[in-house]
Structures are given as structure tokens and as C-alpha cells.
């Protein structure tokens, strides 16, 4: 799984924001606000990762149990898929 081309993540005024640039901007005019965990997962997905890899990364980086990490990853990936942000 990888974030589709044409989306950039930036930190602005204390929050993480994703916008579309280039040709992606023609279809996607929205602004996505991510919290810290969301930004962490997003950046991992920019390089490409499986759901399993995302869960491992979360467990490495944050103090969280596996069930929660898995649930968070699933919910996040689902949101991205619903909005056609990953391929």
C-alpha cells in the first residue's frame, strides 16, 4: 500500500495537514487534518508499507498494545481507502 502521487504532508501551526498538488489538485480540493499518529502512519505509507508493517512501526514508536495498534491502523487505512488516497 502506498499513498497516491500528488499528496504532500506538512506541519503548519502545530498540526499536520495534507493537500493535493499538481494534477492531483484538479480532483482533490480538500484539506486533510491528521493527528500525530495519523501523520506517523501517513509518512510510513509515503514510502509504502503493508498493514502488518504499519502495526509493527506503531508498536516500535508508541506505548500501545497490539490490539489498539491494529485497530488504529485498520481504521486509518479504511479512511484513506474511502477517500482514494492510497493505492
Amino acid at each position, binding site marked *: 500500500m502506498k499513498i497516491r502521487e500528488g499528496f*504532500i504532508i*506538512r506541519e*503548519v501551526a502545530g498540526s499536520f495537514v495534507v*493537500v493535493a498538488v499538481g494534477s492531483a*489538485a*484538479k480532483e482533490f480540493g480538500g*484539506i486533510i487534518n491528521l493527528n500525530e499518529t495519523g501523520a506517523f502512519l501517513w509518512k510510513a505509507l509515503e514510502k509504502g508499507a503493508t498493514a502488518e508493517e504499519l502495526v509493527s512501526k506503531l508498536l516500535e514508536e508508541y506505548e500501545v498494545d497490539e490490539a489498539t495498534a491494529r485497530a488504529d491502523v485498520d481504521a486509518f487505512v479504511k479512511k484513506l481507502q474511502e477517500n482514494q488516497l492510497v493505492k
Partner: protein
Amino acid sequence: MPRYKIADVVFDAVPMYKYTVKLCENYAYSGDAQPEFTAAITQADIDAEKAQEGGENFPDYYLESLALFRKLCDYVLTKRQGIIFHSSAVAVDGKAYLFTAPSGTGKSTHARLWKEMLGDRLVYINDDKPIIRWVDGDFYVYGTPWNGKHRLDTNARAKIAAICELKRGVKNSISKISPQEMLLVVMNQTIRPSETDKVDNLFFILDKLLTTVPLYRLECNVSEEAAKISYAAMTGNKI
């Protein structure tokens, strides 16, 4: 070739229509400073404005004036650390207060309540499309000729003291809000570039703006009381 000074930027324009020249006449410049760029408006620029939402309803001469504004804003974003900020901007005792919200919410109405309350102490910097710039560590709001349907602007600038998001409500209440809360509001009231480097310019400016200027949200009905409440909170003064 008319020369203008808007938002402290001197530039030449090559318009096709008299409408544009008339619109900008209060900003004509005849000083010694050299122009920073030339804005030549082409039919392609006008067609691009026509392709924008609702653009097909407007005549070419009006769209030309929008195209000129877009070129100026692009220059200011790229070179002068500024953005267009769709808002009603007023100055009281030399300090500027900006009311922002989607069109139709009531920015101009609220600004007018302040005007009725404060009379000559209040000056309209721009009631619709001011430019704001980060200059020497402070944010200034500038008058522009694109001044809204009531034609309210002044060729002047003032330091921004506070920004307020307006929301329609039943009761009047004002509260401070965080940069995160205001970020999405502001991003919807400015031009969103599609090039990465321009987006980075925009975010640089927004980061500075939202972390240095006091931010408020006002829920209001259209009443004098709403104006008194926002004035007291944003200026720290009693009316």
C-alpha cells in the same frame, strides 16, 4: 501602461479593458520606485477565470480584473510573503481587525455594526479581498481595489491585532481559538496554489500568522450586542 502600488508592491499592468483601469485608479502610482513586475492580461487569463466556479456569469472585463488580482497575489505569495485573505478588514485606532467566514455568513454586516458603533474611529481597509503580508516580523493588512459589493476600501495598511472567525448563532459569544482550529478556516478563504513550492510559501505564512496573531471565534446573531462583545474581546476596550 498604468502603474500601480498595491500591498506596497509597485507593478505595471497591461489591461485590455477600461473597467480594470477605473477599478484600480485609487492605487495608481507615479512615484520613483521601479516596478517589480508587469502583469499582462491575456484572453487565456480571462478564459481561466471564466472556467472558475461561477465564472461564466461574468463579463470579460470583470474577469480581467480578477485575473489581474490573481497575478498580483501570485507575486505576493512567491516573493513578498503575503496572501489574499477573504475577509472584512477594519482599522480602529490604527490597529486592524479581520472578520473571516465563508461568503454570506455576515462578515460585512458585522464590520458595519462596528462602523455604526465607532463612527470615524473606524476605517475600512478592505471589505472583501485584502492582502495580508508578513513584513519585518509583523502582519499587515493592505487595502486593495477588490473591495466587495459595498465598495469599501482604503489605500492604506494597518498592523493586524486580531482575526475573528464568524459563525451564525442564536446567542452571541466569543472565545479564543487555537491555531489548528483557525487553519482550516483560513485555508478556505485564500487562494490554494497547486505547485508544491507555492504551497510551502503559503504554509510558511500561515504558520507565522496563526502563531503570532490572537485568534477568535464569534458566534453571533445580527445585533449591536454582538458587535459590543466582539469589540470588547478583540480590543480589550469597553465601547
